[in-house]
């Protein structure tokens, strides 16, 4: 077991809706990943700091308050600044269709909107892992 995938599930901003984030964290854990959950009200700075300290491969950002256009790109920028942009960022929550393209352009690798099955998240991670081998 040399390459266990480590995932940080994070709640940026002031949003308190954590049902989705906690479900994803627990479901990924039960599927064999190592998962760290940040809890609420994390700044982009604290998320990136935790991600680097914990040496994660992925960051999953969950946001339902509408602040994704501001906060997701900030996480990406800070990863670059800290030379940690090998960490793959994906996002989820109430994210309007119109915003998805621009988030992907800025470097978010996948956006999972309401109703997404955990299988889709896992297949995203697995496909990505295969690419890296």
């Amino acid at each position, binding site marked *: 077991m040399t390459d266990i995938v480590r995932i940080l599930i994070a709640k940026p*901003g002031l949003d308190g809706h954590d049902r989705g984030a906690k479900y994803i964290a*627990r*479901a990924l*854990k039960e599927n064999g990943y190592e998962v760290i959950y940040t809890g609420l*009200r994390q700044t982009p700075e604290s998320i990136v700091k935790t991600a680097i300290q914990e040496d994660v491969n992925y960051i999953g950002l969950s946001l339902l308050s*509408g602040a994704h256009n501001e906060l997701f790109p900030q996480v990406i920028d800070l990863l670059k600044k800290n030379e940690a942009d090998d960490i793959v960022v994906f996002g989820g929550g109430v994210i*309007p269709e119109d915003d998805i393209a621009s988030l992907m352009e800025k470097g978010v690798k996948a956006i999972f909107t309401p109703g997404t099955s955990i299988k889709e998240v896992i297949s995203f991670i697995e496909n990505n892992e295969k690419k890296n081998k």
Partner: protein
Amino acid sequence: MSFDKKMDEKFQKWESTTLKKVTDRFPERKQEFVTNSWIPSDRVSLPKSSDLENYMEKLGLPGEYPYTRGVQPTMYRGRFWTMRQYAGFGTAEESNKRYRYLLDQGQTGLSIAFDLPTQIGYDSSDSMSIGEVGKVGVAVDTLKDMEILFDKIPLDKISTSMTINAPASVLLAFYIAVAEKQGIAKNKLTGTIQNDILKEYIARGTYIFPPRPSLRLITNIFDYCSKEVPKWNTISISGYHIREAGSTAVQEVAFTLADGIEYVKSAIATGLDVDKFAGRLSFFFNSHNDLLEEIAKFRAARRIWAKIMKEKFNAKNDKSLMLRFHTQTGGSTLTAQQPDNNVVRVAMQTLAAVLGGTQSLHTNSKDEALGLPTEDSVRVALRTQQIIAHESGVTNSIDPLAGSYYVENLTDIIEKEVWKYLDKIEKIGGMVYAIEQGYVQKEIQDSAYNYQREVEEEQRIIVGVNKFTSKEEPPRDILKVNPNLREVQIRKINEVKNSRNNEMVQNCLKVLKEKAEQPDLNLMPFILDAAREYATLGEICGVLRGVFGEYQESIVL
């Protein structure tokens, strides 16, 4: 032979003959039928002789103890519930426009949604507010914003509900100050502040201070309002968000009433007479898809609360025993897929709330899994209530499902299960301890997790999501909030700071700090003084953060 025995014999015979003949050839769809919250459903519920013997004790009559059948003697024959759509976004100017539109459309009360910085006591200018200003509600930084928010809305003519918790005293102070400027006496004001911090720790997340100073602020409001703003509902003890976080119907009622018990205990501990404040306590529940379970839930909640207030707290006043509640249809039941289907879900949930005897109702808009609702979808949501009120006929008779063997049985089961939780929480030492230990959060999360697994495994069907799916165009016309709102609000704050008497503001904040350090003082008058001088929300909460500290979430996975 007794009735029960006869019934039992008849039933067994039916099972072994009539029923068996059919099930041998055509088995039922499932081995086990359960409600949305996993309560086993009888194939067919039956009458018991005790139903009639216990009728007065368990159900009574409308407007009488234990209020199972409703808190008013006429219910909707007297007047309909208050149709109250939760709204607010962007600036105070934009929200004021939406409120006046809703009032023009026949809405009968306002319900103010604040943005997250306001709910967590940060000014728009704070770096914590980046990205969040005006997003999930209106941004209010100072009394000035509040004056604009209620411009041309006479505060003595409408009732206003404000979804505000940790900084509830500050927003109530802003509201009182606006009324003063409109020339309206405090004792004429009607409305509600949510002011329910315990469920913020459990489920909603907009806490600021630790539990004990938070409970002080809450009981300060109970005390202040009982004397100065007597028609104000000082708290809305909320199960809504607990259910949204994934709890069962039983957990929703149990944890909400346990929160209620904690508030009553705290207020009594500060020396307040239970009958002086208990009549102004109100509740807030969710209405989900399982129609009959939800109706039973509302009826059970009323009966349990009446018993708690009477037997545990010795309340004497009838008003203290009545569980009056607001309802919102279940946000988490809305699907992003085939959003038109949500109109049907909301209609069903509305029916449950009305058959359950709600005092006011918010109906969600079909597009809320996608973003903020548009004006058109909000109108359909309001019309749904009006159709149930005027066209469905269910408002003609009070508690029309009473006596349904199934509903009464479910009401009893929910009550029994709720008492089990209440006993357990009492053993833990009350709700503050139960939350600090993560017990409540863990119970809810387990339910949420099990629910979602059933959806994933298609044991639970969500139409349009895991069955009956169809290819769809991505939805258009979603409400967009101006991304530059933070700059707009910062400009407004600066204008206020340049025109107010800054020396007076500093003095008010200094006094507030001194008073906050003395735990036995009521802070409400000092917060009101600072509000009148245009101290910002962030300044006032900043002083209190300095004295009280901040809550740290106990993470449970």
